[in-house]
């Protein structure tokens, strides 16, 4: 099976994050990592390859610095990578990014596209759906389990209340949550091997996309202002008047912890 995994580089969500003067995500002043959910997509792709054979390609749209994340992704085990990099991409919205990803995916003709369910910087959860629309393939999103049987895909789709079972035939895109598996840590052999794996560089020109369709110029949405997260408040106090347990559980349920 020809699998492409979408891997985005994001600012480390464990560190201090901010926006640049132009209101785009500040990628220069923070340490950048693979979007956490994408590591689960990579793991899932590798497991499918191990069970059914095939090839795994990492696809990234991002600035030059994203090569670090591509190397790290490759050190987990994928075969090769494609890196779409172009100065005109700076400031791209989800629609524009999807356009670029779709164009790159057409050159790879995958049977299965795997992605994280969301990225920790944008958190819009729309790219997988947009890609499905642009490519005319099925979208099985928010997976907590994926089963492959020939060209038939079965997904347990995680919802707030439980899960839905949905199926589709390849080609399709599946986005995954962090409940789907336990990503492997790169081994030294994987790290050494990654240095020799091919990384194909593509520009917008290679994909037949003009600069004004993407970036700030082509953005369908615009950030007008932003505010810092409010300081932490005292939190909720539960006074136990015999029903403390119930109150705790209903609080946890309202926050979707249980």
């Amino acid at each position, binding site marked *: 099976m020809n699998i492409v995994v979408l891997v985005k580089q994001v600012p480390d969500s464990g560190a201090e994050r901010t926006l640049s003067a132009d209101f785009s995500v500040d990628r220069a002043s923070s340490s950048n990592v693979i979007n956490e959910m994408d590591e689960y997509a990579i793991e899932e792709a590798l497991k499918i390859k191990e069970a059914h054979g095939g090839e795994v390609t990492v696809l990234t749209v991002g600035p030059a610095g994203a090569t670090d994340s591509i*190397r*790290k992704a490759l*050190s987990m085990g994928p075969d090769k990578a494609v890196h779409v990099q172009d100065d005109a991409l700076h400031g791209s919205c989800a629609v524009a990014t999807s356009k670029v990803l779709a164009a790159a995916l057409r050159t790879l003709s995958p049977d299965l596209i795997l992605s994280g369910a969301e990225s920790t910087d944008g958190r819009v959860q729309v790219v997988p759906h947009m890609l499905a629309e642009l490519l005319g393939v099925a979208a099985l999103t928010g997976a907590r389990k994926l089963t492959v049987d020939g060209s038939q895909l079965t997904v347990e789709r995680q919802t707030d209340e439980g899960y839905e079972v949905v199926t589709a035939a390849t080609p399709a895109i599946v986005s995954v949550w962090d409940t789907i598996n336990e990503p*492997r*840590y*790169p*081994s*030294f*052999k*994987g*790290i*050494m091997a990654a*240095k020799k794996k091919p990384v194909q560089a593509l520009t917008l020109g290679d994909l037949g996309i003009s600069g004004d369709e993407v970036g700030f110029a082509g953005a369908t949405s615009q950030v007008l202002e932003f505010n810092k997260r409010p300081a932490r408040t005292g939190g909720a106090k539960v006074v136990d008047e015999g029903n403390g347990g119930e109150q705790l559980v209903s609080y946890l349920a309202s926050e979707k912890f249980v």
Partner: protein
Amino acid sequence: MVDFRLDKEYEELRDSVRQFAREQVAPVIADHYEKKTFPYEVIRQMGSMGLFGLPFPEEHGGMGGDYFALCIALEELARVDSSVAITLEAAVSLGAMPIYRFGTEEQRKQWLPRLTSGAALAAFGLTEPGAGSDASGTLTRAVLDESTNEWVINGTKAFITNSGTDITCLVNVMAVTGTNPDGSKELSTIIVPSGTPGFTVAPGYSKVGWCASDTHELSFDDVRVPAANLLGERGRGYAQFLRILDEGRIAIAALSVGLAQGCVDESVTYAKNRTAFGHAISDYQAVKFLIADMDLRAHTARLGYYDAAARMLAGDDFKRYAAIAKLNASNAAMENSRWATQVHGGYGFMNESAVGRFYRDAKILEVGEGTSEVQRMLIARGLGL
């Protein structure tokens, strides 16, 4: 020009192990430590990420790395916990390495794939109740029974790491196999598989530290193994363990640096968050200076083991530098754990605190794989004294 910054692949390995230690070891290790249980699941995960194969070539199931890669991994593990770090160190450096370095092709084929994958552990039995720093005190004897072509082993080994886990597959046993022309004992190493009749593993010791690692006294009572279990040549035991321990010192230095660095990490976080007399205690110069000194020790000790490893990998004589690295790093670990617990106040005296464990784990670093006095003897010998 000399440069102590890491090559990219070592840096990536360090990041990978750092993340593993933080995500998989830190949350579970205090419980294992308290209950004195061996962390099988953590060890299995370390195996699947290739840590047990780091310095071995791929044909033996290894990662194709080198001894320095192992040291980097040990440092990052020990930054969080020393029990898992020593389990890796002993399994690789004392268990599998002798078989890789001195074993026959058959012995390598038989044992290395399981050892380098971490599916099985091997141990190294040198120390005895009456022989530690001075191996000439070894009493364990192996006699070749020519009628059956078997070694018959009798004796006792003390403090042997990894010798009694459910996945231990063998112990490399140092035994007297005869007398040299000069009257000294002829020492040889013999591979004794776990479960061989007459080979008894005593219950685990109650230890001050390294409480989630596996250490036992072993007894050998007419234990019979095939003559082919001799590791390398007969009479080479002394030279073999000297080589193994010279390398091992660099590994223990790396582990010590990890502990010393862990003390810095924990103290910085704690001092910023702990308030006394109206300020974070990190506002007090007395506390800042304690932590600055800790950082000084960790960093300089790190340079020492990087240097010793570089000399070893370059094929230079590294004995003296390995001894310096180990002596200095184990001292850094002891000092840092002393002051890190101080910064933590009463909480530092609790076993649940990481620094409480570091304090208990530091002492053995001045003893295992050559005491600090033995390191001084080696340094002095290197100076022609």
